């Protein structure tokens, strides 16, 4: 956006903030229904100083990020190689098709109760849920990435005399990288989306826990602060992955 349009954004953002402040601070809207910006700031300060439910704020943030990262990383570690294999070998693709075809359309949240039943309420099922939600994206996009590599670029690799192994590591892998990065980006966003859901599984800490728990006690300001923190981290996370993507794929130009 050019600078001139930025002003419109700032104006509309400021207008919303002003409306919210006026409504809540004037008492037109009951503070118990909608906390004012001031209350949220105080709540945030309080959470920083005293934590929530016995844990400091940073540990709620940390544990949520840990869960998302763990599920996400596992999905990448397992999903990318699996996807590359499936994309290169039609037999493997056919063998895995029924499994992926069956599990992929099921919303991950549907598995929450089963995960609790089988694995209890530890970190395992939480990370497992996030892992599972990311996995199919990563597998399918990596496979698609390999499948979409132009024949010509493979031929170019053969033509300069690469062996099969060299062809895989020096041509197939880098050529599939843009698709893999797209998968990683989608998975990173899914993993953060699923963090709240995963904390429906008997969590004792985490931002998802914080907003679910505080709402139970009508502690609306904490719920709001929690949601805002989740949103901000989601945004930063996205920007970070985009930056990584741009850097890794610098050779794509803009």
């Amino acid at each position, binding site marked *: 956006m050019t600078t001139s349009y930025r002003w419109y954004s700032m104006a509309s953002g400021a207008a919303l903030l002003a409306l919210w402040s006026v409504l809540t601070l004037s008492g037109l809207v009951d503070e118990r229904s909608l906390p004012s910006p001031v209350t949220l700031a105080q709540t945030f300060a309080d959470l920083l100083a005293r934590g929530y439910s016995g844990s400091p704020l940073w540990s709620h943030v940390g544990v949520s990020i840990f869960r998302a990262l763990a599920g996400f990383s596992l999905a990448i570690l397992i999903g990318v190689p699996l996807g590359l294999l499936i994309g290169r070998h039609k037999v493997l693709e056919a063998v895995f098709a029924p499994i992926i075809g069956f599990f992929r359309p099921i919303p991950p949240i549907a598995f929450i109760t089963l995960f609790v039943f089988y694995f209890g309420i530890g970190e395992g099922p939480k990370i497992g849920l996030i892992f599972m939600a990311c996995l199919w994206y990563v597998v399918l996009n990596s496979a698609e990435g390999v499948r979409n590599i132009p024949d010509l670029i493979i031929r170019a690799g053969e*033509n300069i005399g*690469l062996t099969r192994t060299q062809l895989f590591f020096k041509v197939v892998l*880098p050529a599939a990288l843009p698709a893999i990065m797209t998968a990683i980006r989608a998975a990173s966003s899914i993993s953060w989306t699923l963090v709240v859901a995963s904390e429906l599984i008997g969590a004792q800490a985490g931002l998802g826990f914080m907003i679910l728990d505080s709402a139970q006690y009508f502690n609306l300001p904490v719920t709001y602060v929690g949601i805002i923190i989740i949103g901000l981290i989601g945004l930063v996370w996205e920007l970070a992955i985009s930056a990584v993507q741009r850097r890794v794929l610098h050779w794509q130009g803009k």
Partner: protein
Amino acid sequence: MTEVLVSRGLEKCFSSPGRASGERIKAVIDFNLVIEAEEIICIVGPSGCGKSTFLDMVAGFTEPTSGLLEIMGEEINRPSPDRGVVFQQPVLFPWLSVYDNVVLGPKSRGVKPGDYGPEADRVLKSVGLEKFRDHYPYQLSGGMKQRAQIARVLVAGPKLILMDEPFGALDAQMRINMHELLISVWQEYKPTILFITHDVEEALFLADRVIVMSQHPGTIARIYDIPFERPRTYAITADPRFAEARAEIVELLRAKPEERQ
């Protein structure tokens, strides 16, 4: 003179996916050609006549259905940098710099940096890319990409260079520059070249012999010897013999509009 490439009774059939499974399309039949060292051979012919099919067999990308196809007396059975290909589309590895594109082949074959390094510098200079060795493909113009492809092929010291409409996607002026470049590269390295094109003028300007292919069946219709001396300049295009050969080949090639749709 050395016979670099020998093709005798070469035939290639494809099973056509649309039709009954037994039925097959004969893309190339009865293809007889001997290419001598340092020759530039251009193949022209209507779209779909089998030019690329022939070149792909020479490159080792596909196998002949029958017939003989030898490079320096050895049967062709797989791709090799001995038969370096310059593709129509700029098929560079986009994640590698120009230099790394050029050296990936020798490096992977275990050539020592001390050997491939100077050679890569030399070919990059020959194609006028010495200042762009650290650029990535996306930073190059279409013509520069084709020059990089040529450098990648040259660095391996190939027995035969295969070019499938390498300048077909470039605009007319860029094409002229590339022709001059190719002529100068030939002067320097004297490679044997098999060059496919749609552009009759291009063929006449570059080739020692122009092979005109016919369609249905896809085979050699006529071979023209092009008499102009090397090194050639663009002045020859004003030569009446040039215009004459040009008119004759165009007439031979001209497809009726219905066939071209």
